Each structure stands twice: as structure tokens, then as C-alpha cells.
């Protein structure tokens, strides 16, 4: 769904430039006390940013009898990895993660294919309805998720699509498409059209030129759009909540909630599960953050 869950991705364009041009505003080196103050503020910001994660790590390591301690130690007394073993072997967490992974991968592939081709049309062709189409894509970003959930739920009930992944995958990939098209169009626009023209003179058809020249040159943008769709679907909670209720179909956000309700006191299980879910996503995100500069602003920057 749209909204802040969707990770606004990238703009690969500005990223490359920015990596090189790290200049010193003002041109001089900071004085020593100023440097200490700056490092101090940044360290404080890092602590605040990481604080909940540190806390959850510490809860996950606690042995079962000290869950409600009010200590602030990173490694608690009698630290144990039991909670991690427990959630992986004795709960449905692996199933929820698997379900999420399958839905998310399907969504990201469909979303990327659809967006990559549409963006090509918007970038390289003039056709009636082009401007209107671009505006319409932007307008979809204004629709509150809650507004779409009402009819999607009622229609899913009517067409018996509740409790199936068909509705989930289609809805998730389509809602991610408008933003993906804008990012890819912005990136395609920065690739010189002469390259494709040269290929066509050499005998490529238009679609071959797209497939063989433009797409390979746009790999960074394609990777980022794939990630953006992947993360948006991975983090979806509300669509799954209204469409899925069968135990074996649950995705991790729903499972995790069930967890919290079922094992009222088992904070360490919840914490361990949270960490297991977060780590791969955080690594993926940090890895791609080179490109995550400002896809959202690509259009504006260019103008």
C-alpha cells in the first residue's frame, strides 16, 4: 500500500554524483572543540536511533525468569540464546517468514516487470494521454491506504478472494507500480537516447534496443525499484490483516501480533523473533542505501 511503509527509494542519479563531491562547506577544517561537539551530537543521535533495537536485543537474550527487569544492560545476567532456538523450532515463525518471502518475491517481480515497460513508454514516446497518465500516477499516491482497504475488502469477500494470495500479490504489486514508474522514468530520462538510436541503425528493433541497451544501463535503478517493491510488500500489515485469516497463510506481521496476544509474558520470544525478521531486511537496506538518495525527488531535481 502507499504510505510511509513503502520505502521511498533511490535515485541513483544524484547518488553517483554525491559520492564524489564531498566538499567541506566553507572550505576550512573545523576547530578541535567544534569537532568534539559535532561527534558528541552525532553519537547521541546514533544512540537514540539504535536505542529500541539495543533494548530488544537485550530482552531477547534474557533468561525466562528475568523478563521484567528494569535494568539497562546490553548483555543481561545469565544471557541465553534459548529464545532464538525456541521461536525457530517450536513456533510457526518459520512458516510466517516463508509465506511473507513467497508473497513478497512474487510481488516484487510482477511490479518490476510492469513498471519497467511502462516507464519506457513514458520516457521514450509521445502519445496522447501521456501527461494525464503521469499525473494520474502521482494522484494515486494521495489515496489513503485505509480508503482502498474498504472496497478491496468488500470486493474480496464478494469475489471469494479473501484467504488467498491471488488478491494479495496483485494488490501489492499494483499499488507499488505508480511510484516505481516515476523512479524508472526519471532514470531512463538520464540515459542518452543516442545509444538506442545507434543500436537501431545497426539493425536492432525498438524493443531489442530497450532490452539490450537501456535495461542493462539501468540496472542500478531496476535493483532499487525491486528492493522498494520487496520492502513495501515485506512490511505490509493492513492488507494482510483484512485479507488473510487462515492459520497456514499468515504473514509475519500478523503472526507476530498473534504471538504477542498468545504468550502474554514471553517478551523474549517476541524480541528474538523481531530480531530474526529485522536483520536480513536491515542488511539489505543498508547495502542499498548507497542508491537510496532521493528517487522521490528525481523529477523535481531535474526540473
Amino acid at each position: 500500500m502507499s504510505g510511509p511503509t513503502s520505502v521511498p527509494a533511490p535515485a541513483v542519479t544524484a547518488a553517483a554524483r554525491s559520492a564524489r563531491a564531498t566538499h567541506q562547506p566553507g572550505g576550512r577544517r573545523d576547530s578541535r572543540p567544534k569537532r568534539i561537539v559535532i561527534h558528541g551530537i552525532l553519537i547521541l543521535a546514533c544512540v537514540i536511533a539504535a536505542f529500541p533495537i539495543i533494548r530488544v536485543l537485550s530482552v531477547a537474550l534474557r533468561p525466562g525468569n528475568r523478563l521484567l527487569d528494569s535494568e539497562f544492560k546490553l548483555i543481561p545476567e545469565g544471557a541465553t540464546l534459548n529464545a532464538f532456538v525456541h521461536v525457530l523450532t517450536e513456533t510457526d515463525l518459520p512458516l510466517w517468514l516463508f509465506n511473507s518471502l513467497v508473497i513478497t518475491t512474487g510481488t516484487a517481480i510482477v511490479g518490476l516487470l510492469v513498471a519497467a515497460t511502462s516507464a519506457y513508454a513514458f520516457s521514450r514516446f509521445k502519445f496522447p494521454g501521456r501527461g494525464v497518465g503521469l499525473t494520474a500516477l502521482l494522484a494515486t499516491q494521495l489515496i489513503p491506504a485505509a480508503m482502498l482497504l474498504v472496497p478491496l475488502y468488500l470486493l474480496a469477500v464478494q469475489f471469494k478472494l479473501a484467504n488467498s494470495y491471488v488478491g494479495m500479490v496483485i494488490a501489492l504489486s499494483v499499488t507499488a507500480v505508480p511510484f516505481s514508474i516515476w523512479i524508472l522514468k526519471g532514470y531512463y530520462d538520464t540515459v542518452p537516447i543516442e545509444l538506442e538510436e545507434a543500436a537501431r541503425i545497426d539493425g536492432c528493433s525498438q524493443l531489442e534496443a530497450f532490452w539490450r541497451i537501456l535495461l542493462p544501463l539501468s540496472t542500478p535503478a531496476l535493483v532499487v525499484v525491486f528492493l522498494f517493491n520487496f520492502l513495501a510488500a515485506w512490511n505490509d500489515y493492513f492488507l494482510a490483516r483484512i485479507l488473510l485469516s487462515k492459520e497456514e497463510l499468515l504473514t509475519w506481521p500478523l503472526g507476530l501480533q498473534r504471538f504477542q496476544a498468545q504468550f502474554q509474558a514471553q517478551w523474549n520470544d517476541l524480541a528474538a523473533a523481531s530480531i530474526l525478521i529485522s536483520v536480513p531486511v536491515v542488511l539489505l537496506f543498508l547495502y542499498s542505501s548507497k542508491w537510496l538518495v532521493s528517487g522521490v525527488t528525481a523529477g523535481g531535481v531535474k526540473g
Partner: protein
Amino acid sequence: MSLDAVVTAIQQVGLTLIVIAIAVAALEGVLYLLLVRGLKTRLATPLMLVAPAFVGLAILIVYPLLWELNVSFTNMSLRNFRDPGFLGLENGMFVGLDNYVEVFTRPVLQLTTFWQLLLQTVLWTVINVTLHVAGGMALALLLHRQMRGKGIYRALIILPWAIPQVIALLIWRTEYNNEYGAANQLLRMAGFDGVPWLSDPFWNFIAMIITNVWLGIPFMMVIILGGLSSISSEYYEAAEMDGANSRQSFRAITLPLLRPVLTPAIILGTVWTFNNINVPFFINQNELETSDILVTALFRMAFQYNRYGDAAAFAFVIFIILLVFTVFYVRRTGSLRGAYE
């Protein structure tokens, strides 16, 4: 995790992909016959390229919205749960503009009126976006220099944006717990009394804002950092030669040159914050109606009170508010000029 469940998941998603592939192939086939063979138009290629996306959007966004518009004129609810047909004219579900009038004249759920919710939403949006931009700007300016550990700082500060939001929100929610949560423990360590973060509407609203500011600053910081590094250092060198101090060069160089990056980010941030359902929904654990914002009230109206007709009308009122704001703001700032070439 049983084998059956794994097979079910793969089957379902595989089936979906096949359905989509067949639908796209059929659509392209029809378009090919129509445009290439029939009309022989040069527009065939672009139209065939955009068709899958726009048909998808028509089925999953336009059609549901039209259907919702239809429902908004009926009294569909859990007690009256049947297909209304066209405006509910044939089965007596038609209520005209009643739902729209009631949005403004009756409490939205049970206690709060539309106007109070609107005020809370505007406050929520303005406070959040202001703090996001201010915090993001401050951190970006600090990070935008040659220094040791820059990459580590950046990676750590980005964390709130990187971890899955549902998890971040579940963590924050437990940290607001009266006795065991970190928020009150820290307050007590500093010698204050604990605060009822989850049960008092005012403090719950503050808790929502703290959480969302924590979540939203990294995005603005990354955007502003990108903007800062595209400003050539020559401007600053020239300003320094002319004797400008750092505050003057910030106002005369940094701010104006950041505008093309900042304006779209602010518009987007505003829309996202206005529409943010996750944070208020998860932090407002006790379902305090009085600290809801518009979109969470909408979700509760539809899925807890099951008042579908009312919710549909309410949704369109919210959408129109947002649309008017955005069109006005985009026009005034001209921030999308150039994106259409």
C-alpha cells in the same frame, strides 16, 4: 512448519503469477490485433507498453474507488451486508447524501467530531513534518563534512527507517508501558513521575509524535544529504571571500539551492504523515478515540464498527481535503515542473 503449508504457499503464489501472465498475454494479443493489424497506428508500441500497468490500476484502484463512491450513497453495514447494486436504488439501501452530511454533523465514531479529528490530524502533520525537516537538516549539516566515522554514523542513524515498521512500532509500544517501559523508567531515573503514555489521550498523542519523529528523520536526512552534496563548493568559497559568515551562506546558498530537493520531499512527507495509519494504529493500543487521526478513525469505522456506507463517504471527504492541499501546494511551488518533458 509443515510441508503442506509450504506447498500451499508456493502453489498459491505460482497460480497467481500464471493468472497474471495469461491475463497480460491476452491483453497484449487483443491490443496487437486491434492496433497493429486493425488500425495500423504508430502509437501501438507505447500503448501496448503501458497497457498492463494501467489495466492493473484500473482494476485495483479505479474500480474499487468507483465502487466505494457507490457504497458511500448507501447504508451498507454489517447488519445490512449485501451487494447494494447501483446506488442501492433497487433494494432500498439508497440514502442520498446522508452519509456525507453525517460526517460533519455526528460524532465520527462515538465521541470525537470530524472537526476535532481534522484539528488533530493537522497538528499531527504539521508537528511531525516540521520536526522531520528540522532534525533531518541538522543531522545532514553535521554529517556533510570530512570526518572520521561518517559511514558508521550514517548507517546507525538510518536504522529507524531500515527496520520493518511493524516491529519498530511493537517495540515502541512496549517501551511506553507504564511500569516496565523505557520511557517511564528514564523519566523516573531523572526524578520525574511516570506518564500514562498509553491510557491518557494527550500523552498518547505525544507518544505517537515521538515515535513518528524517530521514524521519519532518517528519510529527510538522506534526502537533504543528497541535496547538499550536489551544491558546488565554489559557491561557499566565493561567499567566504566576500566575508560571509556561515549563517549568511546557509541562508543565501544552502537553503535556496536545496529547495528543488526539499519541496517535493516536504509535499511527499506531508501526504505520508497525513495518511499514516501504522503509527497511530499501533501506538494507540487502547483505541482511545480522542487521540485518533482521520485515517485511523476511518479504519476503525470500517473494520471495527463495520459501518461501510459511512466509512466510504468519510474516505472521500478525507481524500478531497488532501487533494485540494496538494494541488494548491504543487501549483504554488511549481515543484513538478520539468518532470513532464
